[in-house]
């Protein structure tokens, strides 16, 4: 099949502002991934096209981008998800709310700053036991979903609250906080909840569900955010 790839391009050293470029690719398979198409453009047509990718299999979280209007991983988005007939168009642009460095590459600094704000690591100052700190399967299940995050930023950059205010910690940081708040072995839940109950914490979430729809790992993000909201209310 024939696919026209419409890509939002921008090189701040040369271009005054971002623009749309179109590339027509032939012999595209229905099962090709959008990432494959980007590779073909870069390798066969225009080597200056810039984007991030590493694993190419939905594990590293490097290639979140807005594809046909929705945040997805290019390596998990198949051509057949967007084009049914023998010909079609697919539109790719950078995720929104973070500064564009070049083409599809955005500056993730703000995103990772928010990530660090919630102290995304295990905190327990007690003397370590001789063997593992034990946890029941039920206790583990409470935060099972939040362990799946790959920090691709698809959720945070799909959130209108984050677009409007980049100081909002955003869904990804809240999911990471959830991971430790509800871990029975961790001891810093109240510190994290204090951070999340501040102005730029969970209360900027308007329960819009864009993040849940965008998550490539199918984490029920809005549910986890609501659980954190309730936990703040409970304490």
């Amino acid at each position: 099949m024939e696919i026209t790839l419409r890509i939002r391009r921008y090189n701040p050293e040369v271009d005054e502002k971002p623009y749309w470029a179109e590339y027509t690719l032939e012999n595209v398979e229905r099962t090709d991934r959008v990432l494959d198409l980007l590779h073909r453009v870069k390798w066969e047509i225009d080597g200056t096209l810039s984007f991030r990718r590493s694993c190419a299999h939905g594990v590293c979280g490097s290639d979140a981008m807005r594809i046909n209007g929705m945040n997805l991983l290019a390596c998990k988005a198949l051509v057949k998800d967007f084009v049914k007939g023998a010909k079609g168009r697919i539109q790719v642009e950078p995720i929104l709310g973070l500064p564009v460095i070049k083409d599809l590459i955005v500056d993730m600094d703000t995103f990772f700053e928010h990530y660090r704000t919630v102290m995304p690591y295990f905190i327990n100052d007690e003397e370590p036991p001789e063997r593992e700190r034990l946890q029941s399967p039920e206790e583990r299940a409470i935060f099972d979903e939040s362990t799946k995050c790959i920090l691709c930023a698809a959720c945070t950059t799909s959130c209108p609250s984050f677009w409007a205010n980049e100081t909002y910690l955003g869904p990804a940081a809240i999911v990471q906080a959830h991971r430790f708040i509800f871990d029975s072995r961790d001891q810093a839940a109240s510190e994290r909840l204090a951070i999340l109950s501040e102005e730029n914490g969970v209360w900027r979430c308007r329960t819009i569900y864009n993040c849940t729809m965008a998550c490539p790992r199918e984490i029920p993000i809005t549910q986890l955010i609501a659980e954190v909201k309730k936990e703040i209310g409970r304490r």
Partner: protein
Amino acid sequence: MSTLVMTVREVLRYRGKEGQLAWIGHRLAGLGTLLFFVIHVIDTSWVYFWPAGYEHAIALYRSRPFLIGELFLVLAVIYHGVNGLRVALMDWKPRLWARQRELTLAAFVLTAVLYAPAFVIMMGHIINAWSATGVAAR
């Protein structure tokens, strides 16, 4: 300012689902109602400060454009209330996220059901007012 413009533009461009649509409606309804309240508080205060202005405002509220505007006002109030309850419910029962599509559609339907009688009554008033002024003009 540019962030606000960007957010409004992208809210229209991003392919969010029902949740995003419900939220846009919620914002519009909320801001619209707030605008009306502010204006209304000001013109009601004129009873005290500027009675002639108050009379004028009340006459304005009885004019056709305002009667039609009132149709939107009631819709906005009902939708904002119903959808607000839905959001509160979904935050209270986080696992309802799996049913978010159905619940959002249910909020739309419930709004329509609650709005229907109000719409019929108000439409009746508007039509009456119109035929009355028609008679007067003749």
